[in-house]
């Protein structure tokens, strides 16, 4: 079973601040890391191919520096990694991200299974996977907890759905997004990193894609526009709830109503 894992490079910290006067993002050291949820996706892919054969490849969209995440995946034992990088991809929203990824996945070859992490830690939308599946024309299942069996043309899996757990047989090829905490991702091998084969990392750009209509990518291919960004109103006000026990209890109950907890 050949598996492709979608990976994203995310900021190393979510502690981003906006200058309240200029509305500009304050940069606090632009360190990046692999989206932590993607580690579970890689681990699941590796375990599946160890058991059932096949290979694990990875793909990411981002700046050329996202190569670092492909190196990390290879050090975890993935076969190769592809970075989809082009200035034409800049300014993408979910729609254009998903479309670009789907074009990139098609350019990477044929796969039985595409695995995504649950969500990213910077975008937090958890919706790119389903949109990619639409553009690949394959079924998708989110919140996958485990793959119980691999059959010639299908997989049997369990997935969480709100207050239920669902067991399903899904035809291949398909796309799944895995839940967090479903396995223990292995550590990247330092030894592999010391002698990494650069040939295992590929770069693809707009020119390599089948769809050459520029209006489907980047800002032009995005449906949503950010009108403005602003710092959130912080509830840093501290409030004392005085009075006797009865008054305090009443005030707490009112607070619960105000917070829509009741």
């Amino acid at each position, binding site marked *: 079973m050949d598996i492709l894992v979608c990976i994203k490079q995310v900021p190393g910290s979510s502690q981003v601040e906006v200058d309240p006067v200029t509305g500009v993002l304050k940069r606090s050291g632009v360190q990046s890391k692999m989206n932590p949820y993607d580690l579970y996706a890689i681990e699941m892919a590796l375990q599946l191919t160890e058991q059932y054969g096949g290979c694990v490849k990875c793909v990411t969209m981002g700046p050329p520096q996202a190569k670092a995440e492909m190196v990390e995946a290879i050090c975890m034992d993935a076969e190769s990694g592809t970075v989809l990088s082009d200035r034409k991809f800049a300014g993408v929203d979910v729609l254009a991200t998903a479309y670009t990824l789907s074009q990139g996945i098609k350019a990477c070859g044929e796969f039985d299974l595409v695995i995504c992490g649950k969500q990213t830690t910077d975008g937090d939308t958890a919706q790119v996977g389903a949109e990619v599946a639409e553009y690949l024309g394959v079924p998708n299942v989110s919140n996958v907890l485990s793959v119980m069996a691999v059959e010639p043309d299908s997989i049997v899996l369990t997935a969480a759905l709100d207050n239920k757990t669902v067991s399903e047989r899904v035809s291949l090829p398909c796309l799944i997004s895995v839940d967090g905490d479903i396995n223990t991702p292995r550590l990247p091998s330092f030894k592999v990193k010391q002698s990494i084969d650069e040939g295992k990392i590929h770069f693809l750009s707009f020119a390599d894609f089948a769809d050459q209509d520029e209006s489907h990518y980047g800002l032009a291919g995005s449906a*949503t526009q950010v009108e403005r960004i602003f710092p*959130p109103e912080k509830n840093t006000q501290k409030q004392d709830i005085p009075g006797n026990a009865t008054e305090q209890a009443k005030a707490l109950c009112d607070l619960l109503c105000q917070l829509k*907890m009741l």
Partner: protein
Amino acid sequence: MPSLKIHQEKVTPSVAQGLVKGCPFGAISYEEGKLAISSGCKMCKICVKRGGGVVELVEDAKKEVDKSLWCGICVYADCQEGEIHRVTYELCGKARELASVTGHPVYALLIGHGIEAPAEQLLRYGVDKVYTYDHPALEHFRIEPYTAAFYDFIEKVKPSSILVGATALGRQLAPRVAARCRAGLTADCTVLEMKDNTDLVQIRPAFGGNIMAQIISPATRPQFCTVRYKVFSEPKPTTPHGEVVEMSIAPEKLSSRVEVLKVESKPKDVDISEADVIVAVGRGAQSEGMRQMAQELADLLGGVVASTRPLVEAGIFDAKQQIGLSGRTVKPKLIFCLGISGAVQFTAGMKSSDVIVAINTDANAPIFDVAHYSVVGDVAEIMPKLLSYVKEVKHHV
């Protein structure tokens, strides 16, 4: 396609350095007197605003959509096993508010099998029309047939905005349908507003809640957004004035490559890091009576009970229930800290919670440094009274 054009002739080393430093994504470089923008660019356009004409935004002819052809605000009714998720009602209330700006009707879309009762139920929440797709193939949620029915509805009814609850189901269905429509989708909106020109203003937290982003989809319809449960208020049910409209779709469009084998209710998990509400018990509230009251409050609020390290070490609570550096990190919407002094090791695991309420007899306890609401008093006296007030309110709802 809008793009950034660099006027190299205007570049001076100081302007260049300012731009390199000012780019929040580190996408601008300045080497050998040439300014370059890499694919790290997110088109935030800060360089256009601050570059003194060095970077120019070149716009193409804009795509347009005839917005008058798209009318109505639609709520996707999240219905599983015949039960409507309450986020649906909250969205119906919000949809009515938004519709009052543009005079649009409010619709609900209900997909499933044997859904007459939930359809009638929806009418009580001020919906003008409930569109239903009722078919055996739609009994269980499967992505392709649900997407097909949803898309069929959009093609026939052409709603301007679509609100979807950010449930596990909605998070799969909304993006899939939005992709098919090539339309914009904004996840986890916390504020929704309507413009006179029917553009839906969607505000959501970004970068882990450190920034709020205001988003619109000015050139595509419909406009999709998802909203989490309990973000908006549930309206009171009223006398129905709307109608149920049964829709039909060609059965072959409902085929699926997914076969549902088994549906099980999820075992109640005690994962405190996922809970929206936590009632945390410390040494000042460790008696059995107090623990029972804490559990009762947690049950009433749909939350879980958690504890501190000393009580876990004493064997009173399970290690899975421990908050703090050596336990779990939690970020609930609300946390009650009962009789907890607030050692750094504890607060490190909970201080980013949305609302922190602390009850402690010691006015100098460090827990009050992180608490948003400080109650200096005896938890044993306050809790029974609080429980009876809460029950009274619940009784009236």
